[in-house]
């Protein structure tokens, strides 16, 4: 089932949680809502579920307006951040709950309920915990039970609020790939909220990056990582270096480097910021080894070697930008250059994105 969100706005007192959000979730897709806390992502998820009412805008399921529909009638599966398992019920009863509370005419028979529950418990590989109570389970197990419980009512849409937020790093990684596999098997339209970029990049088909109640970018993990649409997305997803410079009629000057900026042909003497990923920077010991016009001189101030990658922290010699420039090079390249602390190097971005400097 597809979900469509049109011009949603939501205000909490003086705080604008959602500002004119428009979005489409395709049928069978696994979509991530990614953003820092307070960006409105959880509110958006709760509005889609019907747990929160928007001040303006519409939510459509499969093209049909569901804005005024009660959460009970939306048939969504919702996995709460802290699981919200019923503490007074066994795991079995937790999963059975959605079936047991149906009006008599729609309620499956007892045997059918146990068959379905057992099937779901097997699906999440926890059938051996059926008689336990929630407090006897580990965080990861509770998470999977919460998912089984949500799936028991055969929802058309699955909504997950920070599904791995409360788990420790190792369990989180395991569950991530498990959720991806589960989704690939069931193909149920799913939306999950996260503040963890790695999680979003690894699991989702598409990512919606949110900030201050607005959508910054929608795209595949590759698109948002490789071609961020705004400085915010750049800074939020992965490490990035900032170079200050200026823009003028399709050309940009960053440090000593001059580059083409075809998207900014109409710019007139604008202050600009170039965003460069650490692995998009060429490093050499001699300036003219880097082709193109000019390079930025810097000194190596620290070296951190992690696995196949070496991270360099560089200080610019021209004293412009006090912040360290972070560069990632392969171990092979590092050996070739024979770098040590204090060496002078020359750097040049191999790829950069230019944005007019924001006036704060």
């Amino acid at each position: 089932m597809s979900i469509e969100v049109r011009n949603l706005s939501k205000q909490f007192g003086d705080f604008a949680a959602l500002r004119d959000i428009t979005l489409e979730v395709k049928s069978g897709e696994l979509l991530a809502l990614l953003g820092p806390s307070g960006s409105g992502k959880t509110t958006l998820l709760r509005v889609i579920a019907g747990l929160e009412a928007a001040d303006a805008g519409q939510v459509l399921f499969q093209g049909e307006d569901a804005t005024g529909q009660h959460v009970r009638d939306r048939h969504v599966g919702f996995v709460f951040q802290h699981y919200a398992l019923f503490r007074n019920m066994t795991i079995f009863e937790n999963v059975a709950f959605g079936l047991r509370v149906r009006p008599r005419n729609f309620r499956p028979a007892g045997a059918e309920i146990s068959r379905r529950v057992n099937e779901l418990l097997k699906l999440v590989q926890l059938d051996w915990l059926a008689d336990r109570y929630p407090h006897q389970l580990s965080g990861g197990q509770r998470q999977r039970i919460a998912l089984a419980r949500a799936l028991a009512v055969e929802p058309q849409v699955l909504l997950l609020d920070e599904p791995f937020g409360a788990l420790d790093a190792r369990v989180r990684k395991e569950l991530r790939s498990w959720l991806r596999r589960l989704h690939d098997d069931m193909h149920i339209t799913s939306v999950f909220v996260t503040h963890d970029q790695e999680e979003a990049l690894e699991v989702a088909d598409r990512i919606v990056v949110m900030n201050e109640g607005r959508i910054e970018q929608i795209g595949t993990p590759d698109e948002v990582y490789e071609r961020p649409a705004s400085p915010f997305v750049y800074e939020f997803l992965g490490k990035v270096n900032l170079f200050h410079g200026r823009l003028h009629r399709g050309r940009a000057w960053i440090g000593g480097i001059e580059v083409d900026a075809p998207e900014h042909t109409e710019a007139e003497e604008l202050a600009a910021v170039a965003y460069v990923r650490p692995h998009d920077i060429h490093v050499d010991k001699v300036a003219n080894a880097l082709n193109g016009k000019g390079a930025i001189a810097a000194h190596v101030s620290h070296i951190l070697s992690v696995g196949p990658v070496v991270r360099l922290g560089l200080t610019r010699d021209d004293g412009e930008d006090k912040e360290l420039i972070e560069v990632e090079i392969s171990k092979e390249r590092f050996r070739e250059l024979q770098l040590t602390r204090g060496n002078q190097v020359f750097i040049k971005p191999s790829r950069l994105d230019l944005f007019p400097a924001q006036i704060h």
Partner: protein
Amino acid sequence: MYTFKQHSVLPGFNLALGFTLLYLSLIVLIPLSAAFVRTTALTWPEFWNAVTTPRVVASYRLTFGASFAAALVNAVFGLLVAWVLVRYRFPGKKMVDALVDLPFALPTAVAGIALTALYAGNGWIGQYFEPLGIKIAFTPIGVFVALTFIGLPFVVRTVQPVLEDIESELEEAAATLGANRLQTFLRVIFPTLLPALMTGFALAFARAIGEYGSVIFIAGNMPMVSEITPLLIITKLEQYDYAGATALAVVMLVISFVMLLIINLLQWWSRRRSVLA
């Protein structure tokens, strides 16, 4: 946008709040307002005269004096009992802990006759005071004894949880900084307990002011000497002096509300303290 109620998907708000308000109005608010409305039948000078006759003033003195003394004793010994229950181990501790709530659970009339029998001149405890020329039952001291009994759990039960929550690290830190036990108690533990202690004191005091059942048996109820204000209300009622009884009741109600306000403020202070700590 500010609305009366925030949006929620949970049902039943109107029914629950409606029933709550209706019930509370019928049982509590309307009858309480009756006392205030009825006093308007009196003019201000009449009201003032009714609540300031020498006999009434003597009853205030006794009620507040004995309540204050009882609450003070309870503050000291309540803190001691709470301390002993939280910090030390001794045989029968669990039972003692449970029995601290006895004054909450024991009907006041039962407490009243039991204390009277004990503290009368020929009672188990009173007989030891009689030769010293000290009479307890049927004097203001008896009132104090009864009020101490009924106020006993308040300080213990407000201080106990706060004392349990004090991190032992706090005391260890004080010890490493060279403080001795008394210094640690006075400078570290006591200030932390103070809001709870004062809340407990205020609760015990408020309860004592209105107390009736446990006091009337042991007080002797001599006008001007050992007659408490609640008893005076009943006396006036029995003489069909409704206006006088109501005027006194209004004085008691206003004092109760002031105490309620003070207690709420103290509890708010107490909570703030524990959040910051």
